């Protein structure tokens, strides 16, 4: 499996330049109970289609960013810097 990702800072690179950080999830606010924490830590939607996910450019700028990728085709629709 191989595809290209566009780092918002460095530009287009092979996917092997990056580390996958999992799908974007919503962090619980306030004082979450155990069920909410359990859901946050261990449950994922595992979408078959376009999902927002974290990537880390470990061979480049060493910055985290968000990509929208179709998990069925590996087509990357867009990437964006964070913060």
């Amino acid at each position: 499996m191989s595809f290209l990702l566009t780092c918002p800072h460095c530009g287009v690179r092979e996917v092997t330049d990056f580390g996958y950080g999992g799908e974007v999830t919503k962090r619980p606010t306030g004082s979450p109970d155990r069920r909410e924490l359990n859901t946050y830590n261990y449950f994922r939607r595992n979408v078959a289609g376009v999902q927002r996910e974290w990537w880390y450019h470990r061979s480049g700028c060493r910055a985290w960013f968000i990509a929208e990728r179709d998990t069925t085709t590996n087509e990357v629709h867009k990437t964006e810097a964070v913060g």
Partner: protein
Amino acid sequence: MSAGFLTVAAGGPPARSPLAEGSHRGAELEERDGWMVVASYGDAEGESRARREAVGWADLSHLPKAELSGAGTWIGSPAEGLATPRGDGWSCPLTPRRALLVGDTGAPPEGATLDLTSSLGAISIVGPEARETIARFCALDTRAAVMPPFGFRPGSIARTPGYLLRAGEEAFLLIFGAAYGAYMWEVVADAGSRLGGRPVGAAALTPALPAPRQEVTTDA
């Protein structure tokens, strides 16, 4: 956390390059700024010819290197992919809030710096076959139209995280983790020697190494 333990102690023994296992073999060494630096490999003419007619590579790990973080004019725009000359060095943008400082840039007017001199190795690759040498172990596009002089690219170099700075038309600087020093020296030597190149000392580099103080026009 302080990184003071990485700096070369004044008055202490000279520091050795992380590439010394390969780059110091057969070399004539001299001390510069607290580092043992390869002056030559005993054949100044041959080294000069190699970098003029094929390719030469030199261990420049003693070059000061630091990471600048924060905001400010020195960071520059990573989207342009160009290093900015600062003093006798360059400011190489990584993200809108971080830059790698290479060479003697002087103190930046703002932001926090972390000395990386001892934790990063550096190899200069110069000569007409420099691009071809790099192409044998690195997928970064070094064509002049894409990466003009002073172009800067973070990316995978010989399958390790690193940075590539184009210091001149035929001069590149590879920067990588110190732990990969011996490996990177061997990779560059393997690629370059097949193209008629050889390792060279700092003396043979003198005219080819970039003069960062020169003004650079980026809108050509």
